């Protein structure tokens, strides 16, 4: 027993061929995912993409009858149909889900008391977590007397007191205002750095995903679209959906057609013409292939010597930078420009595209080339 657990990852989560049906509707379709010990994995996607269902199936909170196929292993043990309390997990919910009739202290210690933990041990663990999250002055208060941010800190504390190897977060910051959200985001990141426990975090907020994750899993329609480090998912989206989901303003997508010369040089024609010598193709381009050129606004640079010309359509000042919308033929391009550059609407300008960092997608398959 002890030898098998030492060989297995101590707190990794392994999901194999998971299929979940609700009323005959397939919510998760044959999903495979390895979550490494100590990693901060973010499940990112629009609502209804199955990310919450996936998290709930790890927690054991889905109706077991809806699991049509597959296994969920936590720390090497098959937990597919285990009771939530037996899985060695802690969970934080969007609506805090604090027990309203209990004090903060009782909220945090409820799980330990249920498990029959000795009193002094309960006391010790609650004190330790309360100190970590600066909850000591609030211990005797009821949840109704706390602010939103305090409530979510208590909910995090309740999950931590269990000293579970795997912590699950279901959109924990979505009910907070922007300033508090940024503050708690940093606290969570620091917490992960200090504790080193495995964290699985569901969100539809790309900023949370980018800032927190060691790896991001982008989901759509119950299927994983891409798994990768935040920068990888941002810079090299695997398909059109991932490209569109990350980034604000979104990636510029320009339709065009490839031309492959006899010597193998690839060019793009269409709304923007370009030489694609710098582009790192993963797939062999075909001549006359219909594609979309995806280029992030920060990779559109204003440059008097630039190869492309356009007219300023609209300017959105953001304080530390400005988003300039450039009319380029029929195509509208967003560009991120430093705030000190003076521009007027209808002003003509030239710009440069950083094609080495662009993305090309096949129009039919929507996959990255």
């Amino acid at each position: 027993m002890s030898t098998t657990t030492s060989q297995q990852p101590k707190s990794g989560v392994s999901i194999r061929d998971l299929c979940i049906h609700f009323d005959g509707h397939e919510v998760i379709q044959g999903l495979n995912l390895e979550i490494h010990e100590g990693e901060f994995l973010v499940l990112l996607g629009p609502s209804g993409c199955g990310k919450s269902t996936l998290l709930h199936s790890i927690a054991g909170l889905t109706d077991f009858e809806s699991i049509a196929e597959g296994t969920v292993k936590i720390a090497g043990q098959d937990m597919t149909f285990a009771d939530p309390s037996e899985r060695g997990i802690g969970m934080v919910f969007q609506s805090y889900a604090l027990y309203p009739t209990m004090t903060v202290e009782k909220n945090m210690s409820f799980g330990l008391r249920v498990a029959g933990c000795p009193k002094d041990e309960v006391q010790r663990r609650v004190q330790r977590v309360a100190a970590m999250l600066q909850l000591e002055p609030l211990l005797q208060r009821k949840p109704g007397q706390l602010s939103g941010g305090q409530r979510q800190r208590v909910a995090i504390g309740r999950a931590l007191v269990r000293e579970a190897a795997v912590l699950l977060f279901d959109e924990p910051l979505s009910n907070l205002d922007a300033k508090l959200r940024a503050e708690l985001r940093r606290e969570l990141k620091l917490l992960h750095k200090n504790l080193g426990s495995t964290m699985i975090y569901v969100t539809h907020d790309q900023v949370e995903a980018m800032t927190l994750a060691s790896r991001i899993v982008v989901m759509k329609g119950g299927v994983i679209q891409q798994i990768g480090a935040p920068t990888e998912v941002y810079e090299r989206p695997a398909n059109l959906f991932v490209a569109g989901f990350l980034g604000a303003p979104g990636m510029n997508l320009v339709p065009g057609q490839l031309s492959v010369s006899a010597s193998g040089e690839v060019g793009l024609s269409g709304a923007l013409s370009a030489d694609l010598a710098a582009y790192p193709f993963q797939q062999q381009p075909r001549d006359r292939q219909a594609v979309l050129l995806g280029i992030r606004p920060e990779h559109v640079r204003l440059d008097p010597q630039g190869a492309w010309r356009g007219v300023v359509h609209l300017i959105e000042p953001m304080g530390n930078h400005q988003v300039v919308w450039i009319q380029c033929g029929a195509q509208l391009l967003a560009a991120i420009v430093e705030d000190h550059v003076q521009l007027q609407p209808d002003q003509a300008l030239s710009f440069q595209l950083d094609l080495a960092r662009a993305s090309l997608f096949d129009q039919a398959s929507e996959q990255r080339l």
Partner: protein
Amino acid sequence: MSHSAVMMKTQAERRAQARGRFNPARWGIYAFLLTAALFFLAPLYIMLVTSFKTMEEIRLGQLFALPMNATLEPWRAAWSEVCTGVSCEGISAGFWNSVAIVVPSTILPVLIGALNGYALSFWRPRGAHVLFGILMLGAFIPVQVMIYPLVKVMAAVGLYSSLPGIVAVHLIFSMPVMTLLFRNYYSAIPPELFKAARIDGGGFWRIFVQLMLPMSTPIIVVAAIMQVTGVWNDYILGLVFAGREHLPMTVQLNNVINTTTGERLYNVNMAATILTSMVPLLVYFVSGRWFVRGIAAGAVKG
């Protein structure tokens, strides 16, 4: 332009309405409310004054007059002397019978209704919807239809004409409304709360007792008020199922008033009636706000 003019006018009107409290419409409303209040209070007034009069004074026929020589004698007689059928020990025996019926017939339905609502809302057993549907259907079937079969059932299990029997009958008939009340209350509680308790290792009973019941105080009060007033005012079930030893106060009151031998003692009858309605009256006065809530909650069933 014309639109904003209309807006201005209505705003000005509203302001005038707020200033001049007593315009004709308001007078009309108050006149109606006053009439309605008098209409419903007049019988209570007549009952009260009559109950303090002697029989000689009642024979004068001055229905609305205050008692000339107010006396508590009719109240004493109603409580401890008046004949209810064969025995003449007053209505107090019926009072204690009713108390003995009401207490368990409130505690049990409230607890079991809460348990039903909890199980239906959070554990969702297989077929929960069908079960709940059947239960609700039960609420629409008139009580009279079930009396005869229920008498047979009670007799078969040996509970007919007994205190546990009448309590069981009240429990059965209260289940749809009690379950509905608690199910609606619990369905407004975020399911995440239940999920958090599941992760913390809470089982069926622990989550119910330690988490859900402490959160249910408002609905428990509403449910208890509905049960207390409903069971206290019950006549037909008590008459049929309670047995002669446990006849509730309402049935005893009927026996007092319908006694045909000798002079009809209006003052004693009035006192007995007021005594019988004392418990629901007290409940209304003490908990008016809660009671209205209970009616509103019960109205959901349509």
